[in-house]
């Protein structure tokens, strides 16, 4: 038997965060976009325990202001790509600038500086990742996926998929299917 699991990273992370914060026994508030506000002063010992417990989940505390902003950009983009209603007819740059209260140029430079990649590439990557997920789920044809992700044509999606991953969507589907068949054995 095989099942496909679909999950919301933000929800999962928020759940983990609140669990770990509860263990600390301090007052806090989760602000969304990976931001947590402590409502009382934290002892350094408790802070270390907190950092340690999150490390198990590969969640790290972003200490510097630039990183925080980059994280916010990423979260906004992920939300935009995976949330079907958000990405219709709105220009990404305008959307980002609007959501984060900085000019797009500033955000773009900052993003490249911290992540070694551009916002545009990151969006493509996220879209392709979403495409992969949809291909594996198998409910939609490639044409439907292209439409859902606002591509002008299947060919456009295919080309971008191949440019990003080096393989065609069909090859991707085939490889994953065969890989699962092997793992089942």
């Amino acid at each position, binding site marked *: 038997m095989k099942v496909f699991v679909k999950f919301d990273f933000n929800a999962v992370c928020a759940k983990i965060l609140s669990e770990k914060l509860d263990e600390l026994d301090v007052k806090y508030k989760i602000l969304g976009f990976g931001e947590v506000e402590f409502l009382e002063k934290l002892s350094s010992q408790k802070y270390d325990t907190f950092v340690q417990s999150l490390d198990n989940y590969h969640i790290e505390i972003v200490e510097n202001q630039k990183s925080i902003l980059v994280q916010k950009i990423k979260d906004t983009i992920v939300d935009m790509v995976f949330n079907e209603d958000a990405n219709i007819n709105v220009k990404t740059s305008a959307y980002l600038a609007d959501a984060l209260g900085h000019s797009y140029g500033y955000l773009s430079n900052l993003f490249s500086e911290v992540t070694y990649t551009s916002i545009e590439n990151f969006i493509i990557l996220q879209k392709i990742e979403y495409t992969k997920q949809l291909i594996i789920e198998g409910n939609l044809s490639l044409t439907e996926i292209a439409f859902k992700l606002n591509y002008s044509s299947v060919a456009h999606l295919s*080309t971008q998929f191949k440019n990003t991953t080096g393989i*065609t969507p069909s090859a991707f589907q085939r490889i994953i299917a065969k890989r699962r068949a092997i793992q089942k054995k």
Partner: protein
Amino acid sequence: MPLRTLYRASWFVKASFIICFFVIFFVAGVTYKNMSDLSESSELVEHRYEIGIQLEMAMSYLKDAETGQRGFIITKDSVYLDPYFSGRENINNSLAALKQLLQDNPTQKKSLRELTELIDERLANFQEAQRFLVQKNNDIESPKFIPIFSKGKVLMDEIRQKIKEMTDLESLQLHEKQKEYKNNLKLTPIFLYIIILLTLVIMVIAYRKIMNDVRMFKIKNEQLELFRESANLSEIISKHGRWKWDIEDDSFEFSDNLYRLLGEEPHSFPPTVENFLKYVHPDDVEKVAEQVTQMREEKDLPFIFYRVVHKNGNIRHLKAYGRTVTNKWGKQNLLGTTTDITDEIANFKALEERNIELERNNRELSAFNHVASHDLQEPLRKIQTFLSRLEEKEEENLSATGVKYMSRIKNAATRMRLLIDDLLQFSRTNKADKIFEISDINVLFEEAMEDLAEKIHEKEATIHADSFPKMYVIPFQIQQLFINLVGNSLKYKAEDRAPKITINYEKVSAEGESLLSKTSHENYHKITYKDNGIGFDNEFAEKIFILFHRLHNRNEYSGTGIGLSICKKIVQNHRGYIFASGEEGVGATFTIYLPIT
């Protein structure tokens, strides 16, 4: 026709005889019945006759008595009274006999009773008359006597009348009975005659059928004899031998050629397992003996392979197979065939050796492939990488000539890479392990287009393809075929227009295609591929597929001349055909035929 089938039926003779049997049985029954009727009839006549006699006799005795009495009256001589006395006794006897004779007939019985009463009365009358005569001294003139006498006459008339009645009734009954018998007897002979005739007919047909069957048996026997002879001959030709093992009797029959297979004259030794095993190769005896034991138990023989040694020392390889056959009566025979496969084994060995050699060649070829793909590529790649490093770091230290030379080296290396890559692809399409699958050609085409998506987009090409049916192909190669064709069209596109490609599909029969002759299959998938590129002169239509053959200068177009060779190779791998035709400046057409299997 149904009559014919009836006649041919195997049960026909049996049924005929059963019918005849029943007919004869029936006839005997009818005859018996008639005979008994006849004797009954004559008995009846006799019976009636006796009744008549007895009645006559009774009458006559009565008359005798009357005459006696009258004689006595006239003569007064008592001698005349003798018949009168004896008459009484005789009448009683007759009446007793009549009673016996008439006991089955109630009417007559009743008449007899009345007759007896009348006679008794008459006799009483006699007696009265006699007494009167004795008492009155024979005074016949006495007025008293006359009424007595006349009463005697009346009674006598009545008796006569009664007897006549009885005789008449008896005659009537006899007559009726006889009429009935006569009726019966009149039909019986015709009926019997017809039935016997019919029986004769059936018997004649049955006889004919028997004779016919016997004739057929003879013919079949002859054919069987011929067949046996030809079987013997074919056994010799095909090196077969037959044997039969009667499992219950544990007796064997060997065909002539089985002896020959053992290197002996036919029937030169009694057919037994022991004698047979003498010829089996010492190493195989145990195996064969075990198999024989198994046959006894399981009564079925799988293929068994063993060797026999002829007297002259020749070793032959034999293969045997057997199966139990049970006939209608439940008798089981194990029938077996033994074949001499020495030559086959020799051929097989030769083939095997050739196969091994072929495999070795193939391995060498694939080793060569590997050398080409890996070992040859690696140094080239390093040359190129070191060149790029040299260019990056040391270019400024070189003279203008040095820079020029380096650029030439780079070009040569790039070209060599292209050649090696294409050559590799060509040799891969040559690889031995081709796996045919029933594939959706539309999917393969889509994947090929996905692969070329960027180039298609870049050159703004429009591609129209018909829908294809499923085909039995090597999927990877067909995809490669599409990639190479479309890639070719994109590469040799006309300067002034965007590439336009149409691919048409059609199912055709080989006969209707002028391009095809001497084909191995009847029906083909016909794929017509057409572009609007630079085209070519039809003069080169065949050369275009030759390995490394290029129609254009290297500086104009960057091909290696392998792409279309690969296409041809792929089509050939599918036992199909590819043809090219073109017009310079207008476009090229490739027609591909893939067999429908």
